[in-house]
């Protein structure tokens, strides 16, 4: 029976009782408990069911390495599956439910899998469920999925918030055990800016549990003194509940800080992700004890030996009244001593070593504990909890010598340094035969840009196990009260000659139900690489990522292959060290803050006036201004007709605006654009095309020469950042000696297109000092001055085919100008128009749109834009590419206009089939639609498209496909549908 002891428990506060709920039952614990210790205190041994066989499982460890004790925790928007009981601190009101069983933890239907266990070895599913074919999808897979999976699915939106935090330090020390504290002290004293992270709430690690004395002080006192010294140093920062989860290139580390997981009060951010850039990283991450592989080592009540004493010393709980210790090293003897001193029974220590322990053996003898040398556990008895062990010879095959009744087994197979963080960026390991462990090899450390190591290890993380050695590794010479330990003897299977029956019950990976026999099967079937074994058996792939199982599994594999352990090698260590919440990774960037919406200065006006919003790049643009009683479609048509008849205003502020300035700016733009920009007169505008190196059209826009050495380049809305980056790419990487400066001023200006026959009238009504007449302000020029009270640049350009001005004012004046235009234009019938009207207006004029007529595979020549390609220039980006044979082929599809015969609208994306099929059995095609709309001006469907030999086929009728399989007939026509001679824009 597991219970709370009358005294002991260095971490709990017995004056602060706490209530929590387990599967609906009310349990009691104390502040300072972990969920795991509190469950033991309430005699809850069985905590869950395993993944595959649904075996009853109990807690085996006391920290991050725990594979079994995972729970559905919390409610509603704070529900989370797979919470680990050994690292979850208890708080008042905590609720948990056990996982992976139906209908209940005690009676789980899935447990029938155990009856078939012998037919469900590693990889059984690769060999079965092959026939009949439809059964995998419809029968087998749904069944497997339902019985697999661990926790329940969160249903509600996360009620918590998360944040990110940036940090820079000279030295990051990971781990607040004695090694980490000593290392931080040393670096702190050397004047370095130091950050120390400890994943648990508490400092001191193992030493404080084991009751070691350091220089005559208790470890506890030594830790408190060192912490006080660190806290007194202004250059040292110490944080608990903060786990370094991963080491990335260039000294980048993530710290995962849990802020409210241990509190009833959930206000404030739940997790804080520290994004740390460290000059050097010292991992003082300690070591993890290994289980021993004997039959029944997964029955609730079998724990790691060190965990058993953690529960007594830290939390004052005993796992059982009678504990059998089984070990291959001296360390586990400490568990026996601590249990005995706590008044609990230790019927025997089963030591696999024939020669037994070192001087510590005398201590246990004094306490009257029986030591069985050279012995092993043949089998643990019990189903849902341990009732006893059968003892055999370690050297034999498992014939039972005696049975010992007990309710807890404390096992130790030696220790493995925590090398995860060392390994994330390529730190290499050496196999230490004597200690049977992989240790970091300092000569093969992860290296930074300077070729020097940027990670080092200290203490048990380096493979040192005694307190004196650990501190010596951290640069401190101390004396301790520890006695010398006798060497460990590697024990990978217990007993060493265990037959198949026992091996089928000897667990390696508890959560994923991988046993010794599974690894041996993998080896037998040729899955010899450690990665193959891992994947075939799923060893180490559970939520604990094999912290307990990997080395044991590796050893079994190497034995089966007759290879040495280092030759078999480890699998790759990947971040995170333990799972971290997706919430923390996301930080504050969710909902409204997930890619913050860019708003133009006129946003609020649009919103108040019926804007139907459309996401365009990072912006929201008004698709149409919908009035009462209108559909969106009605609104679009109304807006178009109003531009054609009166005047409309379009918020064009999102158009990219990039200033290009400098002595070489003209030369630069000549390379960037297909047109000649260096010869553009000051005060003039020119429509320009940009291509990438492959010759494909990537952006377009009007370029304005503001001054002798200054150009303003307009880009598409989506193109602003991309084109600015593109310019900088060329300037920084290729033409770094050209004297050019670029600035993206997109958001510095508000821009309004004023288009329609009454556009001039409208602007003139605002007054100001600029001549807006046809003669004084010709098409494709620009003026600067006062428009009413506004400081404006006006460009005489048109994307609608109407008389049109684009007025640009400082962003701060945008909203006022917009309002002034609406006010002044009332009697002229001014209306705002949205992006859809803009698209249709331009389509009626046969103007191309980047992203519609282009898709990354279109060259200007395909769109009949040869006129925009300068013949005089020697070079521009894309020129050479456009000369390649396929680009020059007459068979390329070319832009044409399309008119449906019945006036309907061709569906978006439609293709024109051609007779016959290609060698792959696909229908031949000869064209496709690129823009297709209902034109309210022409009262019919119009479209543009790319058609093979299109311009030579004017008047021909071709057919476009529809999703329902029918076809639409359309006539090939000139793409300019409206005002072919461009008279309207030039009045």
């Amino acid at each position, binding site marked *: 029976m597991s219970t709370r002891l009358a005294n002991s428990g260095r971490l709990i506060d017995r004056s602060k009782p706490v209530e929590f709920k387990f599967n609906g039952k009310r349990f009691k614990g104390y502040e300072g408990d972990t969920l795991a210790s509190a469950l033991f205190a309430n005699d809850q041994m069985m905590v869950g069911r395993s993944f595959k066989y649904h075996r009853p499982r109990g807690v085996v460890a006391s920290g991050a390495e725990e594979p079994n004790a995972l729970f559905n925790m919390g409610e509603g928007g*704070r*529900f*989370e*599956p*797979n919470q680990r009981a050994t690292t979850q601190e208890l708080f008042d009101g905590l609720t948990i439910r056990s996982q992976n069983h139906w209908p209940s933890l005690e009676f789980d239907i899935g447990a029938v899998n155990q009856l078939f266990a012998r037919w469900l070895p590693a990889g*059984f599913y*690769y060999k079965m469920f*092959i*026939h009949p074919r439809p059964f*995998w*999808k419809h029968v087998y897979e*749904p069944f497997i*999925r339902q019985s*697999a999976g*661990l926790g*329940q*699915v*969160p249903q*509600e939106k*996360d009620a918590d918030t998360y944040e990110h935090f940036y940090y820079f330090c000279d030295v990051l020390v990971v781990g607040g055990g004695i090694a980490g504290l000593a290392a931080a002290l040393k670096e702190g004293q050397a004047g370095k800016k130091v950050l120390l992270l400890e994943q648990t709430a508490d400092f001191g690690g193992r030493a404080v549990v084991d009751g070691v004395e350091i220089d005559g002080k208790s470890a506890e006192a030594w830790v408190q003194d060192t912490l006080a010294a660190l806290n007194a140093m202004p250059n040292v920062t110490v944080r608990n509940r903060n786990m370094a989860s991963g080491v*990335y290139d260039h000294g*980048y580390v*993530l710290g995962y800080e849990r802020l409210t997981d241990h509190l009833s009060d959930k206000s404030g951010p739940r997790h804080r992700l520290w994004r740390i850039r460290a000059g050097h990283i010292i991992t003082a991450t300690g070591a993890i004890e290994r289980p021993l592989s004997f039959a029944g080592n997964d029955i609730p009540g079998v724990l790691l030996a060190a965990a058993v004493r953690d529960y007594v010393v830290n939390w004052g709980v005993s796992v059982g009244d009678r504990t059998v210790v089984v070990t291959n090293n001296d360390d586990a003897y400490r568990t026996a001593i601590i249990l005995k001193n706590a008044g609990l029974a230790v019927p025997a220590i089963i030591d696999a070593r024939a020669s037994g322990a070192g001087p510590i053996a005398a201590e246990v003898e004094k306490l009257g504990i029986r030591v069985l040398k050279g012995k092993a556990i043949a089998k643990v008895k019990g189903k849902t909890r341990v009732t006893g062990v059968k003892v055999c010879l370690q050297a034999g095959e498992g014939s039972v010598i005696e049975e010992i009744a007990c309710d807890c087994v404390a096992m130790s197979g030696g220790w493995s340094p925590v090398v995860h963080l060392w390994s994330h*960026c390529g730190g290499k390991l050496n196999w230490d035969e004597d200690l049977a462990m992989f240790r970091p090899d300092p000569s093969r450390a992860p290296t930074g840009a300077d070729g020097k190591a940027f990670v080092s290890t200290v203490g048990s993380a380096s493979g040192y196990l005694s307190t004196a050695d650990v501190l010596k590794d951290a640069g401190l010479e101390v004396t301790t009260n520890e006695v010398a330990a006798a060497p460990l003897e590697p024990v990978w299977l217990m007993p060493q000659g265990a037959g*198949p029956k026992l091996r*089928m019950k000897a667990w390696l990976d508890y959560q994923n139900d991988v046993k010794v026999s599974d690894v041996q*099967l993998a080896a037998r079937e*040729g*899955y*010899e*690489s450690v990665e*193959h074994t891992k*994947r075939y058996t799923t060893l180490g792939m559970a*939520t604990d990522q094999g912290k307990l199982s990997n080395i044991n599994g590796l050893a079994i594999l190497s034995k089966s292959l007759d290879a040495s352990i280092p030759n078999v090698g480890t699998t790759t260590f*990947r*971040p*995170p060290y333990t*799972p*971290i*919440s*997706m*919430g923390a990774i*996301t930080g504050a*960037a969710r909902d*409204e803050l997930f890619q913050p919406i860019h708003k133009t200065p006129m946003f609020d006006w649009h919103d108040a006036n019926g804007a139907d919003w*459309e*996401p365009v790049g990072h912006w929201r643009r008004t*698709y149409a201004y919908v009035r009462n009683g209108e559909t969106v479609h009605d609104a679009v048509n109304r807006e178009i007709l109003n531009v054609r008849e009166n005047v409309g205003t379009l918020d064009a502020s999102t158009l990219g605006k990039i200033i290009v300035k400098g002595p070489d700016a003209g030369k630069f733009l000549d390379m960037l654009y297909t047109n000649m920009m260096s010869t553009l007169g000051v005060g003039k505008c020119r429509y320009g095309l940009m291509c990438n190196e492959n010759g494909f059209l990537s952006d377009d826009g009007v370029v304005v020469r503001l001054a002798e050495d200054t150009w303003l380049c307009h880009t598409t809305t989506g193109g602003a950042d991309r084109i600015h980056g593109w310019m900088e790419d060329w300037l920084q990487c290729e033409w770094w000696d050209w004297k050019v400066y670029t600035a993206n001023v997109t958001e510095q200006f508000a821009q309004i297109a004023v288009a329609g026959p009454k556009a001039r009238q409208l602007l003139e009504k605002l007054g100001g000092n600029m001549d807006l007449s046809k003669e004084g302000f010709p098409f494709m020029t620009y003026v600067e001055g006062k428009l009413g009270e506004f400081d404006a640049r006006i460009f005489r350009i048109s994307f609608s085919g109407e008389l049109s001005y684009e007025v640009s004012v400082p962003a701060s004046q945008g909203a006022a100008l917009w309002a002034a235009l609406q006010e002044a234009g009332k009697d002229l019938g001014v209306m705002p128009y949205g992006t859809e009207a803009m698209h249709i207006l331009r389509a009626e004029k046969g103007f191309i749109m980047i992203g519609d007529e282009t*898709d990354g*595979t279109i060259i200007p020549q395909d769109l009949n834009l040869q006129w925009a390609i300068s013949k005089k220039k020697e070079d521009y980006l894309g020129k050479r590419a456009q000369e390649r*044979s*396929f680009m020059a082929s007459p068979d390329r599809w070319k832009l044409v206009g399309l008119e449906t015969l019945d006036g309907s609208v061709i569906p*978006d*994306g*439609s293709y024109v089939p051609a007779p016959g099929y290609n060698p*792959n059995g*696909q229908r031949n*095609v000869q064209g496709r639609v690129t823009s297709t709309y209902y034109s309210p001006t022409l009262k019919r469907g119009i479209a543009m498209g790319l058609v093979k030999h299109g311009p030579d086929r004017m008047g021909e009728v071709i057919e476009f*496909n529809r*999703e329902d399989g029918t076809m639409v007939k359309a006539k090939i026509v000139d793409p300019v549908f409206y005002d072919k001679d461009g008279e309207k824009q030039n009045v």
Partner: protein
Amino acid sequence: MRRYSVFAVAREGLRYHTGWERAWRSPQPKKKYDVIIVGAGGHGLATAYYLGKNYGITNVAIIEKGWLGGGNTGRNTTIIRSNYLQDPSAAIYDKALKLYENLSQDLNYNVMFSPRGLIMLAQTHHEVRGYQRTVMANQLQGVATEWVTPEQLKKLVPIINIHGPRYPVMGGLYQKRGGTARHDAVAWGYARACSDMGMDVIQQCEVKGVRTEGGKVVGVLTTKGDIDCDKLGMVVAGHTSVLAEMAGFRLPIESVALQALVSEPIKPCMDVVVMANTVHGYMSQSDKGEMVIGGGTDSFNNYTQRGSFHHIEETVRALVETFPMVSRLKMLRQWGGIVDMTGDRSPILSKTPVDGIFVNCGWGTGGFKAIPGSGWAMAELMAKGHSPLTQEFDMFRFREGKFIDESVAAGVAH
């Protein structure tokens, strides 16, 4: 080869599974083979398999520097679909999908092909038009895809948030036949079948040089000695430019890291694969219950098989935006693979300037789904000298500018 079946498992269960034979032999290289395939990833193994199965060429070695399936074949997120836009792509990916449909039976190895359906979300008007175009193109290519409304989509994927707030879901491109398969099993199943045909799968053997005589390949230098061959297939993904250099030609390939991650396992909650290209992330649920998540590539060239955290962050944000429940899950593991990217993001299956050498590479971020089709086509090319499926994927297309650009409709091509 002893066949796998429920009966075989039942029989072996009674004798503690001691009677299973090796899935593949572990041979020493012979002096000479008719064909050597370098790279025992999915594409290399499938090429060898169809050389044997379709053309009776079985004197074949597949040479692998590490462990078979250990490259991107064993690192990907296993999305399978054939709803590509361009004709040559749709042809080879759909060939692959059709072969996947019977692969478990063909190989007598359960590759767990799961045609659970795949949806690509449209979250901007531009994307809507792009996917409608794909539907139209697919119709003429004989690939069944359909457009689904946000409401239909919500029924198929109850955990999705279709209401934004940033990018409301406007619909999706749905391919019912798409899905996933178990990546390791694909490699292992092919390896077992190749070995059974008498081919040698030689692991832990790195090709260090290519020997040619008079412009024709005669063999390779490896860490296990020289091996002669008449024909050589280079199927080494991100390392293709390294191998090409050994043979004296160059390829337009860049190698960058692509990352993925999985959550801790939970009970089934998502029965289809969803790709959200505007926000840049995609997700499916493995049979084990993990949510399998992927996103974009790093923008710098790299061979380290690990990527920057920055991309993980972007991808997870995208998924939390699309599936708010993801926020309450934990990231269990992240990893990266080096993907081989060509200028047009489409693969190269081609003859080379060296007689007898063929390359199959450039599958980049999306080649798992192509494995059977690519192997089928590459085998045809190597055996017959031409294949309609590989014709457009010739390496010389870059010289002519004859790109097969798939980034047209969707940013991500997984």
